[in-house]
Every structure is written in C-alpha cells, then in structure tokens.
C-alpha cells in the first residue's frame, strides 16, 4: 500500500473527531472518501498532511511512519494537498503561489517541467500568472490550488472538495483534469460532497459517518449500493 491509515484517532481539544479510521490507498489509484458535512473527511486529510495531531493509530506511506512527522516534512514524502476552501495565497501572484508549491524541490529542471505540465492542464493559470491569486474566480482559484499542490511533484495528491462552489461545467472540467493527473501516474485521494461524480471517477471509495468508516467498496459497487444511493446520490439510479 502506498498509503495506509490504521485505527486513526484525532481529537480537537477534548472532542474526538475520528474514532479509529483504517483505510488503504494503492499505487495509481483514485480513492474517494464520501460522507456528510462534519463526518471527518477533512480531518482525515489534515491528519495525513500532519496539520492535525494524531492521538492514536498510525499513518504509513511505504512503511514509513508519517504520523510522527511535522507537516512540512510530510510534503518531502511525496504527499501534497489541495485543501478545502482552496486557501490560495491571495496577495501573492499566481506564479508565486505555484513557486511555493515547489518549496521543497531543488531540481530546477524538474520544477520547470512540472510547471509546463500544469500550464497545459490549466492554460488559464498561464494567462493569469502575474495576477494576484485573490483576484481570480473561484474556479481559477481551484485550478491554482491543485496546480500548486502538483508543483511538489507528489506521488499522492490529496484533494479536499475540489468542486465546492463551482458551476457544473467547471466541475466537469476539474474532474476530467483529475483523471488526467491520475493517468500521469499520480495517486489521488478525493474527498467530495458530489458523490456521483466522485464515484464515476474513482476506482474505490470509502463512506464516512461521524468519525467512522461505515462502508468500503469498489466505486462501481458503491454506485449501485441502495444505501449509498439513498443517502448520497439522491435515491436515483446511477
């Protein structure tokens, strides 16, 4: 397993948000994590990235423990995240945002190649490279957040609700781009409210409810699972 979470517990103060999560992500997969608001999806990604402390359990990447590392060290293990709400650096230019994504990289040739690739994925970003990120539209900011994470040349890309607040056409574009990124060899963990789109894209999925994983299956099976359909797909057939 490229990424393995075992019996993961996370607390905010005295309140436990994750009550023992176990999940695995294989090399080259797109794995989606579904669940209602507050289920603990973002907390799970933040725990992987080292931004929230793990109180119990472990996170391993190729048998290397990540849960003992500081957030900035996790990036060096090939794990990058595009966080919920995008969190681009608004008063920095698009270019500066992308450059920061490659903060841990040293090989300038590699950085240039990655940047060129990101510009082919999101031509909009190249057009606006000197503009301040805060002046971009929501969709462009999402592209920037994904591009910025890719600048680290990660093995695993964590995406937290990339479709949040975007127009349906844009959502389609973003999801197609995620597929393209995955085809280029990047393993993807995708957290989504848009369950249908996520399951159509993903190979496997997990369903979370209040800090626990309640269901795990292939994306196809989840799409036709009556419980999932009722709870997350509006009850209709896929």
């Amino acid at each position: 397993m490229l990424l393995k979470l075992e019996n993961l517990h996370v607390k905010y103060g005295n309140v436990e948000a994750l009550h023992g999560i176990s999940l695995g992500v294989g090399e080259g997969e797109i794995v989606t994590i579904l669940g209602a608001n507050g289920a603990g999806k973002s907390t799970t990604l933040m725990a992987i990235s080292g931004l929230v402390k793990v109180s119990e359990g472990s996170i391993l990447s190729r048998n290397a423990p990540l849960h003992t590392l500081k957030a900035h060290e996790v990036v060096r293990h090939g794990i990058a995240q595009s966080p919920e709400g995008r969190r681009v650096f608004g008063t920095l230019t698009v270019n500066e945002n992308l450059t920061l994504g490659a903060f841990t990289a040293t090989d300038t040739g590699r950085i240039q190649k990655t940047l060129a690739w990101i510009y082919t994925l999101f031509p909009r970003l190249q057009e606006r490279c000197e503009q301040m990120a805060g002046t971009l539209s929501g969709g462009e900011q999402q592209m920037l957040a994904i591009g910025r994470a890719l600048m680290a040349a990660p093995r695993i890309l964590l995406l937290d609700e990339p479709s949040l607040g975007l127009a349906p056409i844009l959502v389609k574009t973003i999801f197609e781009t995620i597929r393209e990124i995955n085809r280029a060899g990047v393993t993807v963990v995708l957290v989504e409210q848009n369950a249908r789109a996520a399951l159509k894209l993903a190979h496997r999925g997990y369903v979370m409810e209040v800090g626990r994983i309640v269901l795990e299956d292939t994306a196809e099976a989840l799409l036709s699972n009556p419980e999932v359909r009722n709870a997350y797909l509006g009850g209709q057939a896929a």
Partner: protein
Amino acid sequence: MEQFFQQLTNGLAVGGIYALIALGYTMVYGVLKLINFAHGDLFTIGAYLGLTLLTSLGLADRLGPLGAVLLLAVMVMGLVAIIGAMLERIAYRPLRESPRLSAVVSALGASIFFQNAVMLIYGARFRVYPHDILPKIAVNIFGLQIPLIRILMLLTSVLLMVALYLFIQRTKIGTAIRAAAIDQGAARLMGIDVDKVIMIVFLIGPSLGGAAGLMVGLYYGQINFTMGWVYGLKAFTAAILGGIGNIPGAMVGGILLGVIEALGAAYISIAWKDAIAFCVLILILIVRPTGLLGERVAEKV
C-alpha cells in the same frame, strides 16, 4: 525655505528610524498576529551595545570613522538579531498554542525584563556617545547645508529597507515569509517550516531595530534606558499608519510620521509635536481603517 528643507531632511532621517523599527513590529505581527511589545527595548539594546562596542574596541582609531561605524552596525545588528531569536524561543514559542492574551502578557514581561536589565547594567542616567566618531561636517546640497550624519542616516535606512524589500519580494524565503503571514496552515502544506520562518522574522526585525538604536545614538549623541518606549510607540504608530502587517506600509508610515512630526514641530508648535503625529494617525484611520496600504486585495474570496 531654508528652514523648510532643513526640517524636511531632518524629518526624513528620523522617519527612516521610525520605519526601521516599525518593520520589526509589522513583520512579527504578520506571521504571529502578535504585537511584540519588547521590540522597542531591542532598539534600546542596539543603542547600548553600540556604545559599549564603540568605547571598548577603539574601532575608530583602526578603521577610520566610516569603517568603524560600518563594522559597528554589522556587529550590533548581529547581536540584537540573536537576542531577538532568543526572545522568540523563550518568551513566545512555548505559548504558540495558548490563548493570544498569554503571549501579549509574555511580551509585556519581556519588555520590562529588557528595560530593567539595561538599567541595571548601564544605569538609569543618560549615557553619552563619543561625539568624535563621525566628522561634524555639513554637505552642501543645492545650496543647503545638511549635516553629513543626517545624510548617512537617511542613506543607511533607505539601503536597509531596499535590501529587505528585495529579500521579501524576490527570494524563496521571502516569499515563504509572505505566505506564512497570509495562511500558516497552507504554508505548512507547501512544505514550509513555519517555525523557521518565524525565527527568521525574529532575526530580521530586531536587527533592523538594533541598527536604528545605533543610529539614534550616533545622531543625538545620548541614550537612555527608556528610549525604546518613546521610539517604540512612534514606530508602532507608524506601522498602524501604513497598515499593520504590511511591509511597504511600515516604510511609508515611518517616513511619513517623521516628516509630519518635524514639520509640525517647526510650523505649528514644538510642544505639540507628539500630539500632531497622533492626530494624523487618528485622521488617517478614520478615512482608512486598515491603514494606508493595508489589505489592498481581499484575501478571502
């Protein structure tokens, strides 16, 4: 006209001092959202370290006036930077996860500690800088006789500010500092070691403040252990004026405050010098609550 230009250049020189100190307040506020109340005392320490090094090393005899002052500046900046980094380690880092008020109280405590330490070591009376370091000559600029030291001071502060600006804008670490000031969590996701960024800020800010202390010692010739309080307050005002957290804002705010003060003292009343400065602050904050350069672009869309 003569008086106007004399006051203007004097205001610019003093404004440069305010700006250098203001940068320390604004950079620390940027990354920690904390007012480092001990910053004015680091400025004081710079002035006293300058005095000690100047009188004990006899640099002027060996290096000539300019070389001596240059080496002195480098040493003072380095030493005050180290004290600044230690301050962060001891007084602020352990409280990073605590409520904001704890760090504020710690900052006030550090300020009292530094002030008392300086008083115990150097005494409570005014101390006098040796006045034969820089030649007391005036330079003729467009028919205006301007003291050499004033010109040197202005040049030094401009040089330091340009260097800082280029560092912040053009280097990888500088960009990381700006990113950490906007969103520490997102900066960590980029692989930036935010603890290191904060340490760098606590090296740069105090070193600029220390340089300002040395310059005040050389310009006015006498220093006192409470000087950091007055200058600190003025520089803090300048930082607010420019928009706290904004680096160019601190530079503009400092220079502006120095000029307004000098002209106000000359043309309105010297007794009202400080009041004028604060009236300007209040007026600007009424018109622009974020300061002159604060929050030019919405950061959260």
